[in-house]
């Protein structure tokens, strides 16, 4: 790792530590509030109103901890049961009180506070002590304050000894920065222990995720089939009927008016070309031929060639993917590239595809304006839905001013070995 990365990670972790101390402090009033609202439940039913409110706060607080853990490389899923459709007081109360995740959140509040405080303070204190050694001590000596020491030298009696604090402080600062990410990780581990879904909850979450994505998938497939049916019915089918009529008419005319028959036949040929063009577009929308023939890599290369922006493709996918996955991956990349071409004003686009650890990663980056927002258009949301059907994910980084990087991941296996075009060097 680059030494700058190392320092940056350390500083980030220290900042995370400070945040976790601030958050840890809020655990104590939350704990008290929870106990109080629980105790007040029989008393005039105050708890019926209070407890859901307090739980909402606790969940918000837990969510911040999960977010913090995720920033330091440990994503934690939310374990809560979905909210009931009814907004009745008793229903909501029951929903909260019977969710094991509520009690695990509660159990976490105190240990989480202690860990957050201790680990956070530790990750801040060591680097601070290092900074003191580097900055403060020379000042101290020149200001001529009385007895003072630093590190292993205590008390400092000569200026020479004083300067020794500089290397000591540097070492301590380095240790502090190097240690901070580990402290964050330890904190995240403990958070996960309490706040991650249990096996049961995980399965329940998985089922609800699958139910949602399956429903979305079925919807979009049904819509797709309807579109295809309509396109065929209004397009190619109608043209073929008219083709038949024109040829029939020409047949009648061939003796009486050969010139007219010839004109009609030429017309028929035109109609047949139009029908073919239409069918071709339709086929491309269902499953692009180049994708069937060359797989994802070849099809993305073909896409790149057609883009008005110079686009480079780097790929390491040593095999073919299952057809539905391949198709989802292709249309996702195609959509992102179309977005880049339409909105980014980029001068160049890069596509990278690779497969490792049972996961296909597709990254599209451009040097354009940035500022892409999944909430803004339907395109990015559509990609998310498409990928979600296969448990895939999309993440977007697009600060105003660019660059825009879209990373899509799809868990999948590689099947048959790739058919390599013989002129790949061309």
């Amino acid at each position, binding site marked *: 790792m680059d030494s700058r990365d190392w320092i940056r990670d350390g500083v980030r972790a220290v900042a995370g530590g400070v945040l976790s101390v601030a958050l840890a402090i809020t655990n104590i009033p939350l704990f008290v509030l929870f106990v109080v609202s629980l105790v007040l439940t029989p008393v005039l039913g105050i708890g019926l109103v209070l407890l859901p409110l307090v739980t909402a706060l606790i969940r918000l607080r837990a969510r911040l901890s999960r977010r913090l853990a995720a920033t330091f490389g440990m994503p934690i899923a939310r374990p809560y049961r979905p909210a009931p459709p009814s907004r009745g007081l008793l229903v909501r109360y029951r929903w909260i009180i019977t969710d094991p995740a509520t009690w695990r959140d509660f159990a976490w509040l105190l240990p989480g506070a202690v860990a957050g405080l201790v680990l956070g303070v530790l990750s801040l204190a060591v680097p601070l002590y290092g900074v003191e050694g580097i900055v403060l001590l020379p000042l101290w000596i020149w200001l001529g304050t009385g007895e003072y020491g630093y590190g292993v030298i205590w008390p400092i009696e000569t200026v020479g000894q004083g300067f020794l604090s500089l290397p000591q402080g540097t070492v301590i600062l380095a240790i502090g920065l190097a240690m901070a990410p580990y402290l964050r990780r330890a904190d995240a581990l403990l958070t996960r222990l309490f706040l991650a879904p249990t096996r049961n909850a995980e399965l329940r979450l998985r089922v609800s995720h699958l139910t949602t994505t399956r429903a979305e998938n079925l919807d979009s497939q049904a819509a797709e089939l309807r579109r295809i049916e309509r396109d065929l019915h209004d397009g190619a089918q109608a043209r073929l009927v008219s083709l038949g009529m024109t040829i029939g008419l020409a047949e009648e005319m061939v003796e009486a008016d050969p010139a007219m028959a010839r004109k009609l036949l030429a017309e028929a040929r035109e109609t047949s070309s139009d029908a073919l063009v239409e069918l071709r577009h339709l086929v491309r929308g269902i499953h692009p031929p*180049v994708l069937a*023939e060359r797989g994802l890599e070849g099809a993305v290369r073909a896409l790149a*060639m057609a883009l008005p922006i110079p686009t480079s493709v780097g790929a390491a996918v040593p095999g073919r993917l299952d057809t539905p996955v391949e198709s989802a991956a292709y249309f996702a990349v195609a959509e992102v590239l179309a977005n880049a071409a339409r909105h980014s004003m980029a001068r160049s686009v890069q596509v990278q595809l690779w497969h490792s650890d049972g996961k296909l990663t597709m990254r599209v980056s451009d040097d354009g304006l940035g500022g892409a927002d999944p909430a803004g258009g339907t395109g990015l949301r559509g990609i998310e839905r498409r990928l979600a059907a296969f448990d895939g994910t999309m993440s977007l980084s697009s600060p105003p001013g660019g660059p825009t990087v879209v990373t899509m991941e799809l868990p999948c296996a590689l099947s048959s070995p790739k058919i390599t075009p013989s002129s790949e060097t061309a």
Partner: protein
Amino acid sequence: MRVVIAEDHALLRDGLTRLLEAYDFEVVAAVDNGPSLLPALVEQKPDVAVVDVRLPPTFTDEGLQAAIAARAAVPGMPVLVLSQHVEPLYARELLSDRKGGVGYLLKDRVSHVAQFIDAVRRVAAGGTAMDPEVVGQLLARHQPLAALTAREREVLGLMAEGRSNGAIAGKLFIGEKAVSKHISSIFTKLGLPPSDDDHRRVLAVLAYLNV
């Protein structure tokens, strides 16, 4: 002229055979799958081969692969590839040996019989026949072409399809002299050395477009 045909649909294979025989071609072999195509091409060494991109058993791009392999075995063997769709990527692969005698057309073009036969003959003679759709796709994306006038772009498009100066002149209703003037201006603007050779200029254009 001796032709080898590769097409898996019996109807289309018979149609092509009938069409070519009507124009005095001799169909020496008509195969319906990928694996038998390459041996047929190498054995028969036809004057021109008409090959469908997608053939059994894989129904991917077997025909294209066989055509490229045949041209590696018999350099410059004229091949006209037909396809239900056209892909600039495939055009580049076909042209990458820079030997000429290559065609790549949409299957629909067969219905314009005279133009199709003309394309087959042009390919057999070592020329090129590129589908206007491929050329159009390539021209649409390339920005340096902004320097060209609209007329020059039209000329470049027809030139890339593989048409001669005479044919371009006829199609655009201008004199052949004007066409060659446009072409030399195109070459200047694109920084390509002028050449009289019909298929070489197509290769130059496509090579330039394939950056």
